[in-house]
């Protein structure tokens, strides 16, 4: 039986003590173990940032790639071998800032990946600049008069692009988060989990306590994630009450289900043959 401990890495964890990332890491391991996925069956792909260090602190296959570019890399890894179970760890800057275009088009592609966007509303690794999700008025060393851009709403944007699995988790609710991750991993298509994550070093507003006082689990309310416009309304809720859980879920064929060339099995497994090309050249 696979246990969370199987994903334990010998690498020193380089996050600040108290960082919300620990909760996310624990939830991931827990979810993988609960689904019986052992380390050699899992590929974790990440960009650059504190969030993106996650696979370094796990025992599994990994690709620690470029800032903002985890999604296209993961997309094509999946196309090359659609049997792969791929998780993507990314940050709010990585996913919605530098990687914003890939985010949009990965949603449109409905490629079967599970994306954990560690959303601490700040650029952690580069020491506290505003991120796309920073709230208006956030003061940083660069935004001395406060952020004046509208915050990016990951759930609403994903929904507007017709994502089939849109969820929000909170790093402080490990079991709830693990349950979302499990469902996302079982979902056949693009699954976004935006994870609220305190950054103890640079976000002194949206703290563990701040979230704890506000989050509520959708599963405990009478909420059905099947209604698109209702999900859109739910995605707007932010303030004294912040919903966590699966906001929207709809089944549809994933990208690799629909690619013609993949009907005979993963690309990586197909055998090379010189015949088709020789034929083709003959016909010219």
């Amino acid at each position, binding site marked *: 039986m696979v246990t969370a401990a199987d994903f334990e890495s010998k*690498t020193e964890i380089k996050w600040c003590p108290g960082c919300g990332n620990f909760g996310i890491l624990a939830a991931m391991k827990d979810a993988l173990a609960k689904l019986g996925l052992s*380390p*050699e*069956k*899992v*590929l974790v*792909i990440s960009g*650059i940032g504190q969030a993106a*260090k996650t*696979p*370094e602190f796990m*025992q*599994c*296959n*990994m*690709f*620690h*790639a*470029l800032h903002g*570019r985890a*999604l*296209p*890399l*993961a*997309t*094509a*890894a*999946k*196309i*090359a*071998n659609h*049997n*792969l*179970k791929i998780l993507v760890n990314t940050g709010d800057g990585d996913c919605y800032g530098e990687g914003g*275009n*890939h985010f*949009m*088009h990965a949603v449109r592609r409905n490629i079967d990946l599970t994306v954990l966007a560690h959303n601490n509303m700040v650029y952690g690794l580069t020491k506290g600049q505003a991120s796309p999700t920073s709230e208006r008025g956030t003061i940083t060393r660069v935004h001395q008069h406060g952020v004046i851009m509208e915050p990016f709403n990951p759930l609403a944007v994903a929904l507007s692009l017709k994502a089939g699995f849109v969820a929000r988790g909170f790093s402080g609710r490990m079991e709830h988060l693990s349950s979302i991750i499990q469902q996302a991993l079982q979902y056949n298509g693009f699954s976004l989990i935006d994870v609220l994550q305190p950054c103890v070093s640079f976000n002194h507003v949206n703290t563990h306590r701040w979230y704890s006082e506000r989050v509520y689990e959708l599963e405990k309310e009478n909420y059905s994630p099947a209604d698109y416009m209702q999900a859109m309304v739910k995605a707007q809720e932010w303030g004294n009450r912040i919903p966590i859980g699966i906001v929207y879920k709809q089944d549809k064929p994933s990208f690799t289900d629909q*690619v*013609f*060339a*993949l009907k*005979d099995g993963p*690309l*990586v497994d*197909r055998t*090379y043959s*010189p015949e*088709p*090309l*020789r*034929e*083709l*050249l003959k016909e*010219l």
Partner: protein
Amino acid sequence: MNIDITVKIGGEAGQGIQTVGQILALACQKSGLYVFAINDFESRIRGGHSFFQIRISDKQVRAPHHQVNMLICLDRRTLALHRSEVVADGIIMMAAQDAGAEQGVLTIPVFALADKAGGSITANTVAAGSCLALLGAPLELFLAIIEKQFAGKSTETIAQNSAAARLGYEAVAGMKCSAAFNWPGQNPRGILMEGSQSVAFGALAGDLRFAAFYPMSPATSILTHLTAVADTFPLVVEQAEDEIAAANMIIGSSFAGVRSMTATSGGGFCLMVEALGLAGMTETPIVIVNAQRPGPATGLPTRTGQGDLQFVISASQDEFPRFVFAPGSPEEAFSITARALNLAEKYQVPAIILVDQFLLDSLYIIEKEFAVPDRIERYFADNDSAMDGPAYKRYTVTATGVSPRRLPCRGSALVAANGNEHSEDGHTTEEIAERNKMVQKRLAKVPHMLQEMEPPHPYCGDAHLLLVGWGSTAGTIQEAVDLLRAEGIDCGALHFSDLWPFPVEVAKKMLEKASRFYVVENNATGQLAQLIRQELLRAPDGLLLKYDGRPFYPVEIANKIKELAR
């Protein structure tokens, strides 16, 4: 050469001059002749001016000719623009609504005849008919080609076009024409192919399984050729949201175990530069085809140039080994593309192939059969049980710098790739010793990669005076050499297809013999010349540069050399 005829067909975009040209080319090829054709067009879909210029010969030709024997004008602008290129006894044919009279111009009522044949859409066929008749081609040959060309279309379409062909043919029946020649016979000559096809087929011969791209001229045609045949291969061609995605995608697919490639032009290559470095750092094999066009920036999007050599050699921050190739012919484009996919995988490095609009959009006769390998060596370590489980380290230091490669989720080995500096196990490190080890490991590949580089190709390489070039200009330079030698000048050429790592030793030796050498490039600063200066500490005796977006003509080079070498 007994036959050396150049036909230029000009008109607006959307008038289908390519169709006329294609029919002409096919007719020649089927009849055992050689052809070489260039495509010249603006960045627009309708209107403006474009031309198709085909050279017909009984010998292999690989360069355009600067003089036109037959000018076919589908509009008046063509006449104005190109009349001066026509040889003294050349023929000018004008497609017009009515057969009007203009001094020295044969006016054919192409559009009226087309209407008669069944529709204005057949005007191309009419024009092709007149053209072939004037060239002295047999009507049956032409009709057979029409049938082949329109195979799969409705019988009505075929009938209309056959009628159009006849009408066009008959419109000039009996006319004498200086461009006419004896059509040899019925043994087809090799195969007719666009340069871009040779890259696409080469990729398939290199077992390409995944291509990602974002549309950009002149690279797009490589991808459309791939998609056209994709269904018979284990091949996915994915249109990405941008070039950044395309480049990162092929890293992902390659990591997961399939040979992967992208194609773009300079502007798109710019956007791939960061991913190029990621491939370098993570030692993930990828192939990038950079189809050059004149810049900077958007420049002249549908024209040709060789302005990206220095750029691709040093693109991306810090240092890592890469291959840079630049095929000089479709045959080389085929073999280099297959080789690049293979070598990238063998050395776990990125490989860049520099082509250009001239090479890709030209039409060639290929005689040599393309070599399709029986099997593909994959250089994986997945059958090595010593590499199973925790023993496996993705970046194991070896003498050649190449580490045993495993694929993720295929066996018990955990595979860690990392764009941060890493230790052998793939995890991020900041240690001095580890850093040094990894830099040295990556660079250790260079001498081995160098062994793989083909020397520059000599042509009369023992000559006193050498023309040195790279990439798509090979055929043109070779013909310039012929022209010069015909005038008694002891001249030869040295042509680079394998550019980086630079084959220093052999290049030095081959250049040593020449007392003078001139570098010929389609750019404005002489980038190969700079590279030769840097690598061989030798300065060329002169540069022969052209940067107007158009390919060289052999005579241009020959004349300039005579001037320079005087």
